[in-house]
């Protein structure tokens, strides 16, 4: 147990492992979830009062097993079958490598490519992170009924289409791990983009938690290490990203003393480890984390090493050439070489006419170039394209402020 873990944290961490084992033994994720939930509730009732048992996972496994047996016996009775024939044989305390395999099976099943991204995100939060259905619904801002339906449909597909409960073969592993990482990063971004601070904190914290699980399961995989580093570094700025009124504060204006130094240190260290583990082809998460590390280590916005940032974007483009990456690179070039150079690059990106941030970037760079009517027009298009309220407010305030040196 790590120092600072609360009982609730410990119960959730161990609960996921117990669930993974039960899912293998019973062959049903739904039954495993139900039984584990029961054990978790009991632990939360008794541990704070009686103290944490010597072997928390063993305690949870035994309790969950009882519950699973009850359910199986009841089902057998209802079907008029001999209960004994239906009961699985229970393994004795699992050696660590079996627990690791069980966890891997659960991770790869919940993030199976035959499930929709939406379903994967829901399962990651419900099954892997151990949130209740109500908590998942609240975090993703949908009704509990909608979320319950989504989870039921996902579990049904797993059971009916026979999505296998197994660790992918070595040759499929890179692809499948990339899929799992993408799901976790979706959870993170759902939090990062949420307008509601509570949802932000919850989702980003859960994504980091899932990222830690992946890094623990794949300590030598740059994908897992880079993803965790990226999330830690982005999340380290959370307290500085909004002002007292809840308005977005851009990187340039953030109070860097409010950045989470512990997260920065951990993230930067992970970037180093991930870079050393990268064989030949750069890993997109690691490169993005390296860019985030450049910002995290800069004493101020002005003192950012823009040369390094632009170079990392060049590396990123070799493995992940998307219009959005080119837009971000253009913004870095604008900082290094001035707004005109940045604007030329932004205008060269022709495939983002519906992307609010493309218009927002143009608005900012036009403003800096002194072309305020054009900046205003670009702002209107950004809002029309659906720029998030927080960002729109920020940009509007900036445009409303007469630039220095003008009446």
């Amino acid at each position, binding site marked *: 147990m790590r120092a600072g873990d609360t009982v609730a944290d410990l119960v959730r961490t161990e609960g996921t492992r117990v669930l993974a084992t039960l899912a293998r033994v019973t062959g049903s994720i739904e039954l495993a979830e139900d039984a584990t939930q029961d054990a978790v509730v009991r632990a939360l009732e008794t541990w704070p009062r009686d103290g944490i048992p010597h072997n928390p996972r063993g305690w949870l496994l035994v309790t969950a097993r009882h519950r699973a047996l009850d359910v199986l016996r009841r089902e057998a009775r209802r079907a008029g079958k001999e209960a004994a024939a239906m009961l699985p044989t229970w393994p004795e305390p699992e050696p660590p490598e079996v627990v690791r395999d069980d966890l891997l099976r659960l991770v790869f099943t919940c993030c199976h490519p035959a499930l929709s991204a939406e379903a994967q995100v829901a399962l990651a939060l419900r099954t892997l992170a151990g949130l209740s259905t109500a908590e998942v619904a609240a975090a993703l801002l949908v009704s509990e009924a909608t979320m319950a339906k989504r989870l039921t449909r996902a579990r049904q597909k797993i059971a009916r*289409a026979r999505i296998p409960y197994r660790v992918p073969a070595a040759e499929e592993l890179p692809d499948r791990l990339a899929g799992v990482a993408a799901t976790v990063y979706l959870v993170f971004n759902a939090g990062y983009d949420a307008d509601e601070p509570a949802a932000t904190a919850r989702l980003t914290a859960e994504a980091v938690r899932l990222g830690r699980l992946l890094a623990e399961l794949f300590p030598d995989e740059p994908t897992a290490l880079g993803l965790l580093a990226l999330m830690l570094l982005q999340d380290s700025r959370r307290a500085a990203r909004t002002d007292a009124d809840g308005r977005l504060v851009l990187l340039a204006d953030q109070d860097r003393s409010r950045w989470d130094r512990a997260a920065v240190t951990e993230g930067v260290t992970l970037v180093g480890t991930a870079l050393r583990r990268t064989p030949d082809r750069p890993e997109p998460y690691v490169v993005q984390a390296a860019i985030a590390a450049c910002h995290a280590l800069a004493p101020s916005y002005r003192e950012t090493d823009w040369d390094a940032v632009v170079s990392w974007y060049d590396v990123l483009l070799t493995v992940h050439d998307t219009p959005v990456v080119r837009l971000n690179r253009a913004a870095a070039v604008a900082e290094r070489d001035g707004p005109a150079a940045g604007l030329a690059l932004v205008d060269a990106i022709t495939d983002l006419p519906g992307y609010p941030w493309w218009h927002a970037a143009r608005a900012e760079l036009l403003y800096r170039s002194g072309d305020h009517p054009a900046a205003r027009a670009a702002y209107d298009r950004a809002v029309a394209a659906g720029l998030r309220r927080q960002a729109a407010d920020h940009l509007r305030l900036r445009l409303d402020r007469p630039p220095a040196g003008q009446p």
Partner: protein
Amino acid sequence: MPRYVALTYTKDVDWTSPEYRAEMADYAEFGKAAAAVIRGGDALYPTSTATTVRVSGGKGGDVLTTDGPFAETKEALTGFYVLECADLDEAVKVASTIPAAWDGAVEVRPIIEF
């Protein structure tokens, strides 16, 4: 072992026409390669031969037939296979070797075993 049906969606073609001889050879090749898991299946005549049947007003009501497929889509149902596979991963692996997978798409659906 679970069974799946692999529905092939491709351009709405007439497999009996000589111009699709090469394609038919590709399907025959798939049939040979996947013989161990194929439990059945057939190629279908184009949707111009399809008749859609509906009964209005419940069982025993008026039979309405319309010329054409249930849904007019760019890619049409042109055939199917019944596959017996260990799990969805195996079924997807087999489906990905059906020529329709690159000429159109293959929908894999688990069969209910009563």
